[in-house]
């Protein structure tokens, strides 16, 4: 074996070792979540603990639905995340369209304001948000969280959509205009179909962000039946006894669909996030 070949081989082995270590570390919490979710409650605090469950207790995954209003939590999460996504995209598309296709005074100021709004995470505004929601009578209201999530995702939605729109040549829309298509017509019939990957990426990204949101929901939703799943799982986190197996079984249901959705958009998302910035 020549030294060059040997060097290549060693490099390859190092690469695989590195990748293996990274994967093991990343998958570790998911492994814990899965194995613990299938353990029996008595096994949880046993003296001689095992890594895998002694007996796989799949019934945990069924029991959670009756042990707490888990179904209701999931439904609330779907309503909040779905509503926020719809609202964010309905407001975001016209804004991104104006910012990518029209010339007007104060355009860069608007863009600056949109980016600036990123600085204000919900948690630092919580005192103000709580007061606003009290005034609007939207404490303990799904609508309140829909509005808030949509607003806090506006910046990303506009950023991603604008990047997508800018990457599409306006020639087709101009042609449609000559054919007598108005602005709205050319947006809906020409631009949006071409921008579909970017629009879907934005939809899913906003949905996941709202689905995973915790801070505002924790503060605003005290009525049990209105809590989304991120706050609702706390029911298994009692003062005396923590039902880890139920907690993790529920978490698994809340995590897997989101990861699958995320995998669908991962490629577009990273490119979109950085592209929007570079073209700014």
């Amino acid at each position, binding site marked *: 074996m020549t030294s060059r070949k040997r060097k290549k081989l060693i490099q390859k082995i190092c690469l695989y070792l590195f990748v293996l270590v990274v994967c093991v570390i990343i998958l570790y919490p998911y492994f814990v979540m899965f194995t613990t979710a299938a353990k029996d409650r008595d096994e949880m605090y046993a003296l001689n*603990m*095992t890594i895998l469950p002694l007996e796989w207790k799949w019934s945990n995954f069924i029991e959670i639905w009756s042990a707490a209003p888990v179904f209701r939590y999931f439904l609330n999460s779907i309503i909040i995340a779905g509503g926020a996504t719809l609202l964010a995209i309905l407001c975001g598309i016209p804004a991104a369209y104006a910012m990518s296709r029209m010339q007007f005074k104060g355009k860069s100021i608007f863009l600056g304001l*949109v980016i600036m709004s990123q*600085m204000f995470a919900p948690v630092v505004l919580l005192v*103000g948000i709580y007061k606003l929601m009290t005034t609007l009578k939207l404490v303990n209201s799904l609508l309140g969280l829909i509005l808030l999530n949509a607003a*806090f995702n506006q910046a990303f939605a506009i950023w991603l959509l604008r990047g997508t729109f800018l990457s599409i040549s306006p020639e087709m829309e101009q042609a449609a205009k000559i054919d007598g298509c108005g602005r709205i017509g050319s947006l809906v019939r020409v631009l949006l179909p071409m921008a579909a990957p970017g629009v879907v990426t934005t939809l899913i990204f906003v949905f996941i962000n709202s689905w*995973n949101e915790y801070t505002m929901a924790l503060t605003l939703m005290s009525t049990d039946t209105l809590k989304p799943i991120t706050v609702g799982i706390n029911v298994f986190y009692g003062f005396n006894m923590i039902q880890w197996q139920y907690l993790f079984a529920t*978490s698994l249901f809340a995590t897997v669909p989101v990861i699958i*959705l995320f995998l669908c958009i991962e490629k577009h998302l990273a490119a979109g996030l950085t592209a929007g910035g570079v073209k700014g």
Partner: protein
Amino acid sequence: MKKHSLLKKAEPYVWLLPSMLLMAVMILVPIVTVFQLSMSQITRAGVIKGYNDFENFKAVFRSPTFWHTLKNTLVWTVTVVGFSTLIGFVIAMVLNQEFVGRKIVRAIVVFPWATSLIIQSVIWKYSINADYGSLNVILQKLGVIEKYINWTPTAQAHFAWECWIGIFVTVPFVTFCVLSGLQSIDTAYYEAADIDGASFWQKLGRITLPLLKPSLTVSTVLNIIYVFNSFPIIWTMTKGDPADRTHTLATYLYKLSFYNGKSGQAAAVSVIGFVILCICSSIYMILSLRAEKEEQ
């Protein structure tokens, strides 16, 4: 005719209106409220009694917990953003190579990004429990340790674990920003460098890093903002305890406002947070813009 041109001029603003209205009501109003509250005296029942000569700020500055929290926040932000940028960068470089199973690894790296912070934190909290946590169980079965270890003997240890989780969940974002940057670099640069006999480090310093600057700037600025404002990890792990030693500004103001009934002081902490964040982001932007100009 004149009316028509006026309409045309107003048109872009009409398109912007729904979005701006939503953000104005849901973000701008709370911002204004926070500034107003930070200057006002507020009773425990939440009644605003009017301007009180920066008494909230003075009270915050007098509190030793605040200064400790401020230090924690800086350590937290620098550690998490620094390490996750470094690790994310290395993983992205590796994922940019051709190897068997690359697609699967790419997919796995996405996991922490897509998982709710609260769920991620709860798993780690369970995992490092000294009595029944799975980290001890696994390490013992593998023969690495004999007796269970108390992973969090001190407040610093708690905080270190929180930083670790922060890094863990931030790495994927950096990885994918860098990866999309790497994939947009023309391979012709590397081919030319190979012909000139450039080493790996020369290629990294002269080609990869300069061309990655835009991606790295975006990911770093966004990460500074997110990590600085991050709440769920620390809240789930310790709620700022033991003895308020593991707070960052975000958890501290939450506790002040919703546990201690001091909304005025909480609002003051918020305002201090904005100011720090504004300064940091502007410094970073100015520095990276200047560096870009020098290169041209």
